[in-house]
């Protein structure tokens, strides 16, 4: 074994190894940071974990349940051992977070220093915490559960979120990608697959969770075909970035791809590093996220890539060896020790013992010895003869005792490893060794997460002793060490084969044609070329070594019932707990997972999955091939919730008069997609303040006594025209729309098939084939969908145009409205020429305006539908004309009160999913004679007629509360001590309904309300009790009399004046 070039360049600082060629740390750039307030130094390229380890930190945190000390176990976030609080953000993974200057790092689930945690005594009480104890012990008596829960939460758990902390600028981004082929994993197989697919001229996206490509080649210096493996990885990575697709001469794969001739353009491979994949979904949607580094404008960026084909080459991770105290700080994966030395230049230990079960870990032992790390012994759970003979020889050459058929049975030491006990798997051989690092694994397990979320069927393979995909979803291909391959040549060939198959799949899809594919001869030609390339790649892959046998060791030798041998580090799940689960009947992995919490922690499937399945099969006495994995849940790697929430843009619409209203002190509120003026003046921070209430009262009285202006632009406005326009209106509206005449507004409502009211509005006939109608602002967005849905079978010829944004709307309301309007138009708007419910085109300062004389607020009022760009102009004219009268704008809250006084309903406030059109007193709208146009809701209205026990809308006159004259904007009600919106309605102690809206009215001088109550109570003059909870536990009781709305101007004289 030779060490690659470049070793020895530059000096290493104290405590660090001389940087080798695969080292990713720049020792010329020191970075200062703090751990628990203690100053420490790392270097650019370090992760938080490698920097802490280099500074001598061995205990990274405490475990969830027993508060056992935990150290560095993995480097890719496979367990929660290294979850830390970084700069105030909890649960950051130290293993994958790059070190930045000035970081402040704290351990989690710890009282005080992790070395001397105050809850460490809990470890002695593990007998009291068997599997599922949480569910069994603390639920009796049930009322004490909240107390237990609080205590448990304090002692167990991971990070604590500070709801106030805002740690620095936190920019989130999202990217949506389209690719022909998406490759998951940027190791040797992934890179080969990306290159092969790109050679067919396809667009490829490659996602790699680490900051560099190369997978397990990236730090290996062992030579393979004349070059160190890390150089092989770098070569492949260079070809990817250069868009170079021709195979170099040295490559054993078939010569230049024939498709290159027809696709001379350089291949496009978009490589995303630092980008873990979170799942593969239906129709090959790959989701993931990119962790921002230096120079990135974001902290994390959500990725979604829709691909035609997916190659999963996610590689393998180490299967933990289950033995006594296998969680002690100082027990780690072979890859962790190896990469600490090779990638980060950190000496992992001063006396190392290996207990492993695969050749790669043996290579690690040899390489660590070469780097000057003393290796005391190497135990291999496989019997002699199953190893690569070259590696055995290399160990012997270096004088390292090699013990095939041995495995670790126990780690010694209380807070960290001081030694270990090795035993033979068969027989009684046993020896104790002193060490400060115990590298342990039970061989390899594939990273099946991406395949599992894609929907692949996995089965246990008794040759590789891993779960292998036996059936892949359409367009998903697996490659690399994931499939059990170990020889680098085989891995690369399998990647190439998967890439060719993916390309063939994509081109085949295109060639199959169909209306929406780029079909045709060209893609058929390319598909044929790709098929030939696949054949060549298949032949090449078959000529190379196939999957190598794996190791089936279940646990270390001599495991006893009392052993603290951890199957799951995150949730403190031990081998003993698995046995307990099985004994209680939770004897399949999916059940044990729920009962004992195995694999529910942050590491999810990764540490626990395969061991749990194997141990369970063993306990049940099933053959291993029947072992079933638990379901792998996305996200495979957890992005922060902020990333999933997205950048949080507040997208809203402003009315054409927004600026004008703002300059008049409007307080805006989001209403649907719109920002609407709620009221004017007052203190926006205190919605219910005296000043605001006073201002609101003024707005209301000014409309009642004088004249006011409302910006009602969000009102939905539609044109419908064509020969079948009337048919469509008749279908959707509940009234007889054929009664519409030019110059008249027809009021109607819209129901669904259950006869619930969805909307109301005015319909105006322009001519026999053309109508104009309004909807509520909330309904504007779904009107198109509704009309087209309910006419979808009819093949009618009509056009529906949404002109909501084309026209603004100004509501001029109050007894002086006509006098103001007269000053700005020459048209005859007298009561005779333009009566109530009329509709006219009038000219206001040269602007043609559609004017509807409606009365939602209960006064003489004109609704002017003005082209949006003229809204400000018309508004200014009206304000100028009304100045003598004291014209004032009013907001949404005033309108809400005004219309309620008049007894006009708002859908959603006075109607709900239990009441029909008839129940809310609007049955008169229904054209019951019409059975031809098949009105939506008409059959249900007929069926509900006379049905007993329905709710009815009634008016209320509230007896008490008149003393309070505070109408509160926003707050739903009339003030403290009186009922508010939502108060209960009681009759003889029984709840019979609820209050929809109630306000104190200055106009009336008493508090009115509208309520939905049971039919038998809805008798005019009846007395009911209103019950309100002012604060929890304090009930306010009021009397109310049932009256019939409208409360204000019941005859409607003011509307017609």
């Amino acid at each position, binding site marked *: 074994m030779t060490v690659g070039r470049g070793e020895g360049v530059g000096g290493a600082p104290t405590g660090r190894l001389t940087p080798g060629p695969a080292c990713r740390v720049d020792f010329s750039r020191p970075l200062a940071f703090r751990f628990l307030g203690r100053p420490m130094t790392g270097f650019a390229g370090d992760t938080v974990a490698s920097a802490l380890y280099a500074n001598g930190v061995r205990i990274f945190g405490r475990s969830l349940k027993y508060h056992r000390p935990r150290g560095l176990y993995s480097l890719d976030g496979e367990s929660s051992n290294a979850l830390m609080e970084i700069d105030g953000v909890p649960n950051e993974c130290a293993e994958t977070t790059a070190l930045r200057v000035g970081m402040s790092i704290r351990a989690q689930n710890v009282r005080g220093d992790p070395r001397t945690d105050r809850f460490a005594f809990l470890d002695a009480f593990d007998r009291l915490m068997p599997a599922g104890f949480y569910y069994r012990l603390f639920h009796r008596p049930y009322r004490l559960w909240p107390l237990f829960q609080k205590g448990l939460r304090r002692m167990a758990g991971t990070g604590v979120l500070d709801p106030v902390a805002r740690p620095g600028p936190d920019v989130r981004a999202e990217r949506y990608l389209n690719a022909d082929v998406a490759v998951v994993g940027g190791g040797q197989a992934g890179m080969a697959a990306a290159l092969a697919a790109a050679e067919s001229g396809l667009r490829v996206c490659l996602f790699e969770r680490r900051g560099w490509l190369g997978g397990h080649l990236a730090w290996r210096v062992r030579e393979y075909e004349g070059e160190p493996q890390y150089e092989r990885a770098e070569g492949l990575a260079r070809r990817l970035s250069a868009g170079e697709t021709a195979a170099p001469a040295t490559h054993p794969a078939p010569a230049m791809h024939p498709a290159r001739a027809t696709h001379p353009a350089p291949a496009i491979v978009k490589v995303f590093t630092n980008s873990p994949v979170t799942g593969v*979904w*239906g*129709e090959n*949607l790959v989701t993931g996220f990119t962790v921002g580094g230096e120079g990135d404008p974001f902290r994390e960026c959500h990725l979604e890539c*829709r691909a035609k084909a997916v190659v999963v080459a996610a590689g393998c991770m180490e299967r933990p060896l289950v033995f006594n105290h296998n969680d002690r700080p100082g027990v780690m994966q072979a890859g962790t020790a190896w990469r600490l030395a090779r990638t980060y230049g950190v000496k992992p230990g001063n006396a190392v013992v290996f207990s492993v079960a695969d050749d790669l870990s043996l290579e690690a032992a040899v390489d660590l010895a070469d780097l000057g790390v003393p290796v005391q012994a190497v135990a291999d759970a496989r019997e002699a003869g199953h190893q690569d003979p070259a590696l055995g020889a290399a160990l012997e050459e270096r004088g390292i005792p090699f013990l095939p058929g041995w495995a670790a049975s126990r780690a010694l030491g209380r807070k960290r490893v001081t030694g270990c006990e090795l035993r033979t798997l068969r027989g009684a051989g046993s020896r104790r060794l002193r060490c400060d690092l115990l590298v342990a694994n039970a061989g390899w397990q594939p990273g099946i997460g991406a395949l599992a979320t894609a929907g692949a069927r996995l089965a246990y393979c008794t040759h590789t002793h891993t779960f292998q995909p036996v059936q892949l979803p359409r367009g998903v291909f697996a490659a690399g060490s994931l499939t059990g391959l170990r020889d680098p040549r085989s891995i690369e060939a399998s990647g190439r084969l998967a890439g060719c198959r993916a390309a063939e799949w994509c081109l085949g899809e295109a060639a199959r044609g*169909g*209306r*929406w594919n780029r079909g045709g001869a060209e893609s058929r030609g390319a598909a044929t070329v790709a098929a030939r390339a696949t054949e060549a790649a298949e032949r090449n892959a078959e000529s190379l070594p196939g999957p190598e046998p794996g190791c089936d060791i279940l646990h270390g030798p001599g495991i006893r019932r009392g052993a603290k041998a951890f199957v799951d580090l995150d949730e403190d799940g031990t081998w003993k707990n698995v046995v307990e689960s099985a004994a209680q009947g939770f004897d399949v992995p999916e059940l044990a997972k729920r009962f004992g919490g195995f694999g529910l922690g942050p590491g999810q499937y990764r540490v626990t999955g395969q061991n749990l399945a194997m141990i369970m099969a063993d306990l049940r006495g099933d053959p291993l091939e029947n072992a079933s994995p638990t379901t792998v849940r996305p996200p495979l790697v957890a992005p922060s919730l902020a990333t999933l929430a997205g950048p949080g843009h507040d997208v809203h619409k402003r009315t054409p008069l927004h600026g004008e209203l703002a300059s008049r002190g409007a307080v805006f509120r989001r209403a649907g997609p719109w920002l609407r003026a709620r009221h004017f003046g007052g203190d926006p921070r205190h919605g219910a303040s005296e000043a605001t209430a006073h201002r609101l009262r003024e707005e209301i009285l000014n409309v009642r006594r004088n004249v006011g202006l409302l910006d009602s632009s969000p009102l939905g406005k539609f044109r419908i025209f064509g020969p079948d326009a009337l048919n469509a209106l008749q279908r959707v509206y509940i009234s007889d729309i054929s009664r519409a005449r030019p110059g008249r507004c027809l009021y109607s409502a819209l129901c669904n*098939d*259950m006869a619930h009211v969805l909307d109301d509005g005015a319909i105006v006939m322009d001519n026999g084939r053309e109508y104009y109608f309004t909807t509520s602002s909330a309904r504007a967005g779904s009107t*198109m*969908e509704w009309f*087209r*849905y*309910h006419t*979808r*079978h*009819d093949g009618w010829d009509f056009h529906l145009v949404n002109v909501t944004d084309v026209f603004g709307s100004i509501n001029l309301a109050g007894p002086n409205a006509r006098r103001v309007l007269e000053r700005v138009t020459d048209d005859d708007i007298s009561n005779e020429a333009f009566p109530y419910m009329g509709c006219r085109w009038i000219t206001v300062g040269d602007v043609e305006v559609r004017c509807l004389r409606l009365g939602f607020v209960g006064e003489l009022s004109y609704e002017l539908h003005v082209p949006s760009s003229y809204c400000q102009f018309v508004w200014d004219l009206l304000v100028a004309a009304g100045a003598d009268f004291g014209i004032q704008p009013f907001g949404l809250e005033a309108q809400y009160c005004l219309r309620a006084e008049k007894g006009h309903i708002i859908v959603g406030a006075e109607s709900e999913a239990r009441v029909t059109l008839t129940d809310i007193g609007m049955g008169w709208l229904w054209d019951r004679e019409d*059975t*031809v146009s*098949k*009105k*939506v809701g*008409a*059959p*249900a209205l*007929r*069926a509900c007629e006379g049905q007993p026990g329905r709710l009815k809308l009634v008016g209320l006159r509230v007896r008490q509360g008149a003393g309070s004259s505070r109408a509160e904007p926003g707050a739903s009600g009339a003030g403290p001590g009186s009922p508010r919106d939502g108060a209960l309605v009681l009759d003889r102690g029984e709840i019979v309904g609820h209050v929809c809206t109630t306000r104190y009215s200055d106009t009336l001088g008493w508090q009115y309300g509208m309520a939905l109550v049971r039919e038998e109570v809805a008798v005019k003059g009846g007395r009911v009790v209103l019950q309100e909870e002012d604060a929890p536990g304090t009930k306010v009781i009021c009397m109310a009399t049932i009256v019939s709305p409208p409360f204000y101007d019941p005859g409607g004289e003011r509307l017609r004046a």
Partner: protein
Amino acid sequence: MTFRLTCPVCGKRDICEFTFGGQERGPRPEQEGLSAEEHFRWVQFRMIPGGAEPAQGAGQRGWRQAALQQEWWYHGQGCGVWFRTTRDPATNREVEGDGGEG
């Protein structure tokens, strides 16, 4: 869960652009002489694709028991068309060539 649908106007688009309009259950029944029972059956009852027949009498309306489902979708974030497509709800796959009925 995610899949794509073929809009007859816009082609294959992501599912998030569409609104589901329910199973195809034929045109709105004639209202002359329509009983409440029949009406609510039409409004509320659905067939389980590939599953058992809905309770009594559902077969009268001519529903076939099938693993495929004919259904309506609205391309709200696109062209605004309602269209019918045949899909297998078990795999979320559209039946090839069936997208595009207006």
